[in-house]
């Protein structure tokens, strides 16, 4: 497929604007960092045989570009604030991947596929690391052998009670049984831990749903159809009474009609049919509201990415005053 002439023009205009922005004035897309020396004093402890020592290391904290400009103006030879190549490359990669994902709206392309593959790969690796370091090490290994884990892996690991320790051995056994799904002959063994998981989950969910959704929501539906409202002096207030009563009536009618719609034991004819029809209207309005909120959420995410491109990458806008350059100068890049 060839790019149409109109799209080539759009693409060239965008590339020209970005190039212009990059080559004029203070440029774009750089990250500056400031050296922040860190020190920790460890005092001697005869009980544990720890010797007194001082540990020093350097941290580099991101600072706004205006701090670099000010530091350079004061002392052109200063090195406490400098450009971070690593973070700058990270920023440009973020911009590249953002544009690569956006490019799918034009059509599928290698840039999009690279970005998609990177997201999938990074996510999978990240979740594996999280699962290992936040579940298997502290919860399973830490539960089975707390002293070993504290000594060699996690210094903050606390001891477990005898019952907790036994529970962890059970968890280990169930985990191994679950892995038997990978075996063709022993796959049936994995049904036992699955049954355990389903049973525990169902038990937890049933109780919480009955409490918070069935009972509490039913109670919340019992509303007075004539909700008399009074003002601060205790006098009857007409308009709030009308609005509150109307709101309560809408809730009660909506609940009843939606329940009727999902009641299939009786044919939807006559009064039942009309009630079900009102129920459909309620459902449609609910779906519309849900769709509207979803759109709002997605537009907010799009706006956040565009802000990143215009602010952090292109240095075209500066709402947070990070670069302290006036508006006109920002537009022309001086």
């Amino acid at each position, binding site marked *: 497929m060839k790019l149409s002439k109109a799209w080539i023009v759009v693409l060239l205009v965008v590339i020209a604007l970005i190039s212009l922005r990059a080559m004029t004035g203070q440029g774009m897309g750089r990250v500056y960092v400031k050296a922040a020396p860190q020190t920790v004093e460890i005092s001697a402890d005869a009980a544990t045989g720890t010797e007194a020592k001082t540990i020093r290391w350097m941290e580099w904290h991101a600072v706004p570009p205006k701090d670099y400009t000010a530091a350079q103006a004061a002392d052109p030879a200063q090195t406490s604030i400098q450009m971070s190549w690593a973070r700058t490359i990270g920023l440009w990669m973020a911009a590249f991947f953002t544009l690569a994902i956006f490019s799918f709206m034009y059509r599928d392309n290698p840039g999009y596929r690279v970005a998609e593959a990177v997201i999938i790969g990074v996510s999978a690796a990240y979740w594996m690391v999280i699962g290992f370091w936040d579940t298997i090490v502290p919860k399973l290994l830490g539960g089975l052998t707390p002293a070993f884990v504290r000594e060699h892996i996690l210094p903050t690991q606390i001891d477990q009670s005898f019952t907790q320790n036994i529970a962890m051995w059970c968890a280990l056994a169930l985990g191994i049984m679950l892995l038997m799904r990978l075996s063709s002959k022993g796959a049936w063994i994995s049904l036992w831990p699955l049954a355990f998981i389903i049973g525990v989950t169902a038990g937890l969910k049933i109780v919480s749903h009955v409490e918070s959704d069935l009972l509490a929501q039913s109670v919340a539906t019992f509303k007075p159809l004539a909700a008399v409202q009074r003002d601060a002096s205790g006098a009857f207030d007409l308009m709030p009474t009308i609005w509150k009563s109307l709101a309560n009536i809408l809730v009660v009618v909506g609940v009843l009609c939606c329940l009727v719609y999902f009641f299939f034991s009786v044919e939807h004819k006559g009064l039942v049919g009309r009630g079900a029809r009102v129920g459909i209207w309620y459902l449609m309005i609910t779906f519309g509201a849900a769709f509207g909120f979803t759109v709002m959420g997605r*537009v*907010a*995410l799009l706006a956040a990415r565009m802000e990143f491109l215009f602010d952090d990458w292109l240095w075209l806008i500066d*709402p947070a005053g990070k670069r302290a350059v006036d508006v006109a100068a920002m*537009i022309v890049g001086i």
Partner: protein
Amino acid sequence: MDGYGGIQVSGFVRFLESLDRRWIYLAMAIAVAGPIIYIGLTGKTLPETATPAAQAVFDAIEELPSGGHVLFSFDFDPASGGELIPMATSIVRQCAARGHKMVFIALWPLGAQLVDETIKRVITADYPHMKEGVDYINFGYQAGNEAVMKVMLTDFAKAFPNSSNGTPTTQIPVVHGVTRASDFPLLVTISAGYPGAKEWIQYVVSSSGGRIKMVTGCTGVQTPQLYPYYPTQLTGMLGAIKGAAEYESIVNDAICKAHPGTTTPAKYLEAQRRMGPQLGAHLLMVVLIILGNIAFFAQKRAAAGAKS
């Protein structure tokens, strides 16, 4: 001929029918980018009026006596940051201004890093007198979803034995006197999905017998699912970026009133800035829906004309 049995439809309708969807994407990009650049250059934002749900979040934090404990659960990751970070920033700011004790936890792995960023952005930058461990603490991420909530109901220290920097919970002054979740009078969840606000209501608020008040800031996708819980089980709610902008404006007004002559830093106007692109995008969508309906009814009319 136009595919309607010889009946002519206008050129404009034919143009709409054959319009490449990519021009709509470009129009949407311009509708969103235009207000961002305008607001970014001028600093002007749209006025906001708080709805009762957003006002209820503000009131719940205000009504808590100064120094009261607030439990924050950051149940989101950077993917939802565009909507939720402005809410988190403003809620932490209001709590810090009121002098509340803040205890942060995360049930999403990346929530812990977002807690750190929020603490740096708000508390370290603007409330430097607040001390870690005394006025606030980050317990970081804990795996287990609902199981963590259930354990917190009976033993907070068991669910979070250490803070994120490794200090044992029993040695952290800010949680002295806190033994279980119901010892927190106010729970704030910033929620993007599962586990999130719904699970907190189901497993903690409902089980606490009304001792815990809960407010939430949630994504647009979650908002319709949580409305049934408001205001009985959920004291207040910030729905999507609109809720964030409303709440941000109330907090900014309150702090400016308390400290006359101060201006609001740009980092506390993030949600209000994002309402400009919302306006542009929504106007474009309204126009597109109208045009789509015009094309639909024109087609229908032409088809009916062809039959007759």
